[in-house]
């Protein structure tokens, strides 16, 4: 693509990010009883996403939440490549036999204070995959979840609401 066409496209597209709406008290997320987001995570939370055995539906919604339209970066959230850099572990899907150990290792490799966010119905009650021989359990069986985002898959707005519950922006 030529430089001129790219510049024309940038000016034509302008700002595609939707304005942030007020999440309101009945936002579609489950916050653990007594969960208080760590003070140091106000305005900045790096996210490590772990796919513990998801069908990739939630992944598409997470990609949308961090894309230009929902733009999670304005909340101070950013996807990072290493759990050592992360403050927030976002887990999707049921926990399969093969991912149980990597999931535990990822959570252990995240420095304190950390927040565990589970995304999608599979993380609570295993959804359509309940009872399969490949499933070791749901995320709740392995770790204490601070914020749960229900939905199959959850809308990007719900993922944004979960991030806002942690960064409070």
């Amino acid at each position: 693509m030529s430089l001129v066409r790219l510049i024309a496209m940038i000016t034509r597209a302008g700002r595609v990010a939707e304005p942030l709406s007020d999440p309101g008290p009945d936002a579609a997320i489950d916050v653990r009883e007594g969960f208080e987001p760590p003070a140091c995570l106000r305005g900045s939370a790096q996210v490590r996403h772990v796919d513990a055995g998801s069908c990739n539906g939630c992944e598409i919604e997470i990609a949308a939440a961090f894309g230009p339209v929902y733009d999670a970066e304005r909340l101070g959230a950013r996807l990072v490549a290493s759990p050592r850099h992360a403050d927030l572990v976002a887990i999707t899907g049921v926990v399969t036999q093969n991912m149980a150990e990597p999931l535990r290792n990822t959570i252990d490799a995240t420095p304190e204070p950390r927040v565990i966010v589970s995304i999608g119905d599979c993380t609570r009650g295993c959804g359509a995959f309940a009872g399969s021989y490949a499933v070791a359990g749901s995320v709740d069986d392995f770790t204490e979840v601070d914020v749960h985002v229900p939905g199959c898959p959850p809308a990007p707005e719900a993922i944004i609401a979960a991030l806002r519950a942690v960064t409070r922006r």
Partner: protein
Amino acid sequence: MIAAIVVTLVHLAFALAITPVLIGVMRTVRARLEGRVGGGVLQPWRDVIKLFAKEPLRAPGSSAVLIWAPLLLMASSLVLCALIPLVSTLSLPGAPGELFVVVSVLLLGTVALAMLGLESGTAFGGMGSSRHMMFTALVEPTVLLSIYALSLPAGTSTLTAIVRARRDDLSTLLNPVSILAIVALIVVVVAETGRLPVDNPSTHLELTMVHEAMILESGGRDLGWLEFGSWLRLTALLGLTVNLAVPWAIASDASATALLIGAAAAALKLVVAAALMAAVEVFIAKLRLFRVPELLAGSFVLAFLSVSASYLVF
């Protein structure tokens, strides 16, 4: 002497204050051109403050390198900011502001980073370190040669003296020697600070990482030092380049007005240069790793031509 100490402290304070803002400006420019809103100019500040509040988590069995390498990088970057004429050309008497000293201090931080990458023991860390050292080996001769070309009319290789001479004699700004050397230096800044097209600072693909691959295993406070140290290198190198390219309004004494004007001018020059760099990054893709040496060799040729031309011009 006291004036020189004041100037050094002003340099350090200026660098510490402006660096996260510079990174924030670069991210915001990039976000706006991509149609996003972005985290805002102050987001890097929030990120590092948070990192310093977190416990550093180090892998079991790792040695003390994980502790001192981030501190060494931060210290070398601070020394770099103190030696480079960012706001004023007044230098600490007795402190070596020589070109070779500055390049060595730069190299100290690079080696600390490479050691850290090797210490993590993962394949990606070692890969990042080896790539980083390859870039360094190709970049350092260019830095030396291009600043050497600029030092010829000044007759000294002390950076503060070079900047002062260029500010006082504006005829040295617009000639082939100066332009070739500045273009070579810009490529150096891009390569040394891990920006596109040499390295992508926002990549998540381990195979394409250079800088990120080395710091994958550091977290919490350690990561805070590493991030801030690498950002300070950007401020120092970019500050040196813009002050060599447009050496206007740089203070030469330690009076409050001169320092204020110098700091404001330096901040403006740095923000404009950083915004330009970020805008250009939107239009280019990362180079294949094996094409990067061609780019760096090209910048070396420019620096070499600049030195050759300086014998014809001066």
